[in-house]
């Protein structure tokens, strides 16, 4: 039965239900067990933002507290996956992924291919991304394009509590390595989520709003920014179709192309930097496969090609907002040759 829970709770519930269902599922990461026994704490912290809270005591021996050594525990998770476990590693901020890149892109991503399909690596690496928390340039990046670029990795960027639970469930049940991106600013977002377990397939975009005039393709936190813009624009008589990609690898090309074929206009909204990005990739896809349907140039609304600023006023300008999305949609809707 669906009740309203937060994005954080939805992720926690998916972990708990999959650990209940399959004893090979384990959780590992920094601060999972930290805080245990300290003054005023009744439970382990459950990670830096408390996402795994409650699991440490519920699943004794299956929630592993790791040292601050991402290269070691991510490598250990990948190794455990090749040996029959289904580890879910929490790598606090995606910005730290650099120190364990060899394990991820040159090992985990390659095993199935290089062993001729005889090896599987069912590991999930959960990680936080995104700006907006005044956490400065080394804790605020949107690095899903780096992982989307690597064949052999699956990349998931959920926007809602419902999607977070279903996509994490699929990530854990999936036999390939999955990088699972959680936006820090979405953890307290609440929405309806069924109590029962369910898996959402990868590579299926979600049309979160229907409209005939302009297609907005987006993902993650920007789904909500885009919906806010679409709501404003509807009042002005411009009707947007908003497509949430949900996963960038695999990518649901058909839903994007079908929508643009109907509207003839595309705005891509992406919080990441613009070069070699999901926004650039979707734009290229549409330019190549739906060129005949386009009635206006494609617009991209992204962060600028700079590090995330620490100054609050600059950070607020850095992240795309509904006004910028609305301006881009209007430009595309009113474009005339």
């Amino acid at each position, binding site marked *: *039965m669906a009740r309203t829970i937060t994005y954080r709770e939805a992720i926690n519930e998916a972990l708990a239900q999959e650990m209940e269902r399959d004893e090979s599922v384990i959780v590992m990461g920094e601060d999972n067990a930290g805080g245990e026994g300290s003054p005023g704490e009744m439970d382990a912290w459950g990670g830096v933002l408390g996402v795994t809270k409650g699991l440490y005591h519920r699943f004794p021996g299956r929630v592993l507290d790791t040292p601050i050594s991402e290269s070691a525990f991510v490598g250990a998770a990948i190794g455990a996956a090749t040996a029959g476990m289904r580890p879910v590693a929490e790598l606090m901020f995606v910005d730290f992924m650099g120190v364990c890149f060899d394990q991820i892109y040159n090992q985990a991503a390659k095993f199935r291919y290089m062993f001729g399909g005889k090896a599987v690596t069912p590991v999930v690496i959960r990680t936080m991304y995104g700006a907006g928390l005044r956490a400065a340039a080394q804790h605020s990046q949107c690095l899903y394009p780096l992982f989307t670029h690597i064949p052999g990795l699956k990349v998931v960027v959920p926007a809602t509590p419902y999607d977070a639970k279903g996509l994490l469930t699929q990530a854990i049940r999936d036999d390939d390595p999955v990088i699972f991106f959680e936006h820090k600013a979405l953890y307290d977002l609440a929405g309806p989520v*069924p109590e*029962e*377990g*369910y*898996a959402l397939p990868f590579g299926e975009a*979600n049309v979160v709003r*229907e409209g005939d005039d302009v297609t907005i393709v987006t993902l993650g936190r920007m789904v909500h920014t885009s919906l806010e813009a679409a709501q404003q624009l509807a009042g002005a008589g411009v009707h947007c179709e908003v497509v949430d990609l949900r996963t960038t690898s695999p990518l649901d090309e058909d839903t994007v192309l079908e929508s643009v074929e109907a509207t003839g206009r595309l705005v891509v909204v992406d919080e990441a930097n613009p070069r070699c990005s999901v926004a650039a990739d979707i734009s290229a896809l549409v330019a190549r496969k739906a060129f005949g349907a386009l009635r206006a140039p494609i617009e991209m609304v992204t962060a600028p090609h700079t590090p995330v600023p620490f100054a609050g006023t600059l950070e607020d300008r850095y992240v795309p907002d509904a006004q910028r999305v609305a301006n881009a949609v209007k430009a595309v809707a009113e474009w005339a040759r």
Partner: protein
Amino acid sequence: MTDDRIVAVTMPKWGLSMRAGKITGWIAAEGDEVSAGDELADIETEKIAGTLEAAGAGTLRRIIARAGEDVPVSSTIALIAPPGVSDDDLDAAAARARALIDAGVPGGADEGTAARTATVDGRRISYAGTGQDGEVVLLIHGYGGDRNSWLFLQEPLAARHRVYALDLPGHGTSSKDVGDGSVGTLAGAVLGVLDAIGAKRAHLVGHSLGGAIAVAAAVAGPGRISSLTLIAPTGFGPEIDAGYLRGFAGARTRRELKPVVGQLFADEGLVTRQVVDDLLAYKRLDGVEAALRTLVGTLVDGDTQRIDSAAAIAAIGGAVPVTVVWGSADRIIPAAHARSVAGAVRHLIDGAGHMPHLERPAEVQAAIEETIARAP
């Protein structure tokens, strides 16, 4: 005071979660003569688009809510009155209704319609009820449906009855374990819900597989069932579109599911993206696919129906009133099967598909009310 000959047309409540609806267009115009079942307006909610039908006869004298406007449930959106009512009285009533809409005052409070659960044979069964007074009516959905399939009927029927709808095992928010999936097991869930409600007797309304379950419950609980209204029921002939049943169980994506669901309706335009997305969300719950495949085994052997409700109806032998309702354009089970329901009053709904309770709710409601009235 308001002239009691003025009848308010109100924003309907289609489903427990509906708080407001948008009138997408008026079909009837001021001055039109309307009778029960005539289409008045197209209404859209977050979940569904539907057509509001007139509940009674009269002249549509005032339209209050404009097309495009969001209106809270139960708000007065139009007035029907005979010619004898003065324009001044109508204008006054319309102004009051208009002020309430403008003030955004929610018309109807919730009447304790939250879902409840009963444990039957170790399974969690969800059900929800509406209405304070009258006899108990229990609505039983079909294969792949849930209690929300009655959204157009539950509130209107609740004006005179205590109306409950359940989620069968394997469906909605009930346990996804269907056991052997037999009609007897499913009928056990129906009688278990009647026990949980504390209803000694009830009128049963069953759609498709739910029709066969209603008949089986009447046989299994003699004296507990006051009447049977069967809507396109299974078990009254060999023919059925087994491809639909297997296609529904097997569809994994929106693209696969949409054309399958379209077969249920005479007008496939009723299958909105929201309808397909809601069904997909249900089908993706752990255990649902296995439950549906078990139920396909209950329903068909190859391409032929396995359930025999005709014998059970004969066994009841006219002890309770039976009505059968069928859409003439049903593509899942042919409407000709209605002739095999012995002793039943038959309503053929011209142009409706397999889902007349969603496609033509006012006519189905009238058939149900009439059946209840025939019960001793």
